[in-house]
């Protein structure tokens, strides 16, 4: 078993899947000889050639539209959006079209496409390299949205995405790419879409989170343990469909739910998790369903000081843990 970063797990997984299945292709900006802006596709064009590793124009609508066309015609394209911040021109291809292929053709056609979308902030990326864009996709029936936060999950979920017969948006947090290292088995495995995982069991309260915030939450939970609090951390991993069973079981067991996200809270993943807990766990709750996210302002600020103020941090999460725990 090799220790890998998230980005290395992504690259190795695509390499393996392309070897395994000739219909898997990669397309996106600079994915060829440049190897991708994050080097996720480094070496792939040398291995599989320009017919399967396609450098595209700087046009996300085209990347996703081409991928969709290839998908409904039997390929398994992996489209790379260079930064989530630039995915908006492709909304029509993804939300408007790809999500509806199976339903709209009465099951005659389907779109087995994967869209890898590096997202998230805390990377001094400013307004256009920091965005969290998950809500629009997670709101859309017909799309699956996964957000792995560890190298192991990155491989397992990317395998499931590539092999899925319907479109899957794979959200990869940029900050985790080289920040998080972990063991990744060399053998083939996959993680089912729609399965959350309790990354840290606890009994006093449950944190529900995903992406970079998983790691901040785990740090905060460790800090809270020093003062005797036993905090459970649930990694949502899939944002659509949410794993309602795991969410409800954890919230019911601990009686207190804290939802952490990097995205602004209004009408977001945390809203939906809160609704699930409210619906399924009412008589087990011993405190208000609590959410922690950044302030409701349009972008991630560029100034390092303001960026730090905007982003949830382990310290802010610890503060939220303590407040909810003592209620």
């Amino acid at each position, binding site marked *: 078993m090799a220790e890998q970063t998230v980005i290395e797990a992504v690259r190795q997984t695509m390499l393996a899947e392309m070897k395994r299945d000739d219909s898997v292709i990669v397309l996106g900006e600079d994915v060829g000889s440049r190897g991708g802006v994050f080097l996720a596709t480094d070496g792939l064009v040398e291995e599989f050639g320009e017919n399967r590793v396609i450098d595209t124009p700087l046009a996300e609508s085209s990347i996703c539209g081409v991928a969709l066309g290839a998908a409904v015609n039997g390929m398994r394209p992996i489209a790379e959006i260079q930064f989530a911040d630039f995915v908006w021109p492709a909304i029509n291809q993804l939300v408007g079209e790809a999500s509806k292929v199976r339903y709209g053709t009465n099951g005659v056609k389907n779109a087995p496409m994967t869209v890898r979308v590096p997202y998230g902030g805390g990377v001094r990326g400013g307004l256009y390299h920091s965005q969290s864009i998950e809500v629009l996709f997670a709101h859309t029936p017909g799309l699956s949205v996964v957000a792995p936060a560890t190298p192991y999950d990155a491989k397992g979920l990317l395998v499931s995405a590539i092999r899925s017969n319907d479109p899957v948006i794979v959200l990869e947090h940029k900050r985790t790419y080289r920040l998080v290292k972990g063991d990744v088995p060399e053998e083939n495995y996959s993680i089912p879409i729609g399965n959350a995982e309790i990354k840290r069991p606890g009994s006093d309260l449950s944190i529900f989170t995903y992406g970079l915030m998983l790691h901040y939450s785990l740090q905060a939970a460790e800090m809270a343990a020093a003062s005797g609090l036993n905090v459970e951390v649930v990694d949502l991993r899939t944002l659509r469909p949410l794993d309602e069973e795991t969410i409800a079981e954890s919230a019911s067991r601990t009686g207190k739910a804290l939802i952490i996200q990097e995205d602004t809270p209004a009408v977001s993943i945390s809203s939906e998790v809160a609704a699930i807990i409210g619906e399924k766990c009412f008589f087990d709750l011993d405190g208000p369903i609590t959410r922690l996210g950044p302030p409701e302002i349009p972008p991630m600020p560029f100034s390092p000081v303001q960026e730090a103020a905007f982003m949830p941090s382990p310290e802010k999460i610890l503060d939220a843990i303590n407040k909810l725990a*003592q*209620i």
Partner: protein
Amino acid sequence: MNIELPHVGESVTEAVIGKWLKSPGDRVEKYDPLVEVVTDKVNMEVPSPASGTLINIIAKEGETVLMGAVIAEMDSEDASGEPATPGSNVESTQSPAPNRIGTLVQGSNVGPTGGEFLDTSLGVTETSSPTSTPTTASGAANGSRKQKGFSPVVSRLAAQHGIDLLTITGTGLGGRVTKKDVLAAVENGGSSAPGSAAHRPSEEDTIIEPSPIRKMIADHMVKSMSEIPHAWSAIEVDVTGMVKWRAQNRQEFEATNGVKLTYLPITLSVVANSLVSNPRINSSWQDGKIVLKGDVNVSVAVAAEGGLVVPVVHKAAGTSIADLAKKIAGVVTRARSGSMSLEDVQGGTFTLNNTGALGSVWGGAIINHPQAAILTTEAIVKRPVVVVANGIDSVVIRSMMNICLSFDHRIIDGAEASEFLQSVKSGIEAITAQSELK
């Protein structure tokens, strides 16, 4: 027929009336332009909805009118609507408010292609059962929440395990009772749920369904104890003289009056007089006020079959011992035979309970609600007592009796209670074998 200002767009609610293109009396064909209107989105001409004659212009030029309001009347050849009353003037400010608020009209075409929308705002769409009566658990939770803001899980656990949340000391924020606190209470055996092991009757137990009288007594006692802050005081009375008086007068009394001479009418006579001189003892707390009773009507506790009854001896003050004895005999007989009249049980202002007849030497009686006090006369016991005669202490054998007063502390303080007890004591102790008692 009425001509209404048509709805022109999804966000437009009102329009300003421009130039009227037709005048009252003009002949108009269907779709002829009638009037120019100006909205914040478009300016347009309102076409005539029918052919006929314009009768009356209601919305004047320059007036702001809500969509749907009547702007004119016409005599229409193809209309079925009734003409509005001539001269009726629809002020724009009186137009229906819902247009401003916006209402959802089920089934109206709103989409660009005329698609209908489904009003989900009212909706029980699930196949839920028509009754939505709360379950026991949620009902209990509701009750508890009102009292103290208990969380759902705390309410549910408390209901499940029969925990009285008000008895639990919370360790949460501001003393909130947490889930852990309830679980700890369950662990500690705080369970007192009906049907829990501690209270489930075993097979050896006998279950008695209380009689209506028993239930009434129970309710009455609970009411008294929960409403009235009881306080208690007791005093010893030397009844040697009274015992002697009774022994001396008994035969003649019974021969004359035809009723037995017990100690009850004697003490009752003294008590009634003491009530007159201590009116606060003969009172009642009613609606936050103290009502001093005009009459002294003494309820006498009587053990009858089926339970306690307290017939009333009315106007006991100033009544002779003989008459008191007759009255007592009368009500007691009726009480024991179950033939009491309403009069027999109504109007009591104070209760006297001769618990001494049963050998009791001390008692803390429950006040007969809504009275202010109850007095028990305890058993008469011969005891060695220190008496002072001519400055010399000596131990003598005396007949002694305790009298115990329970009183409503809202009305009566200890000093007043003691004063009353002293009054009864001195009244009884004043009796000697030679007393001329009436």
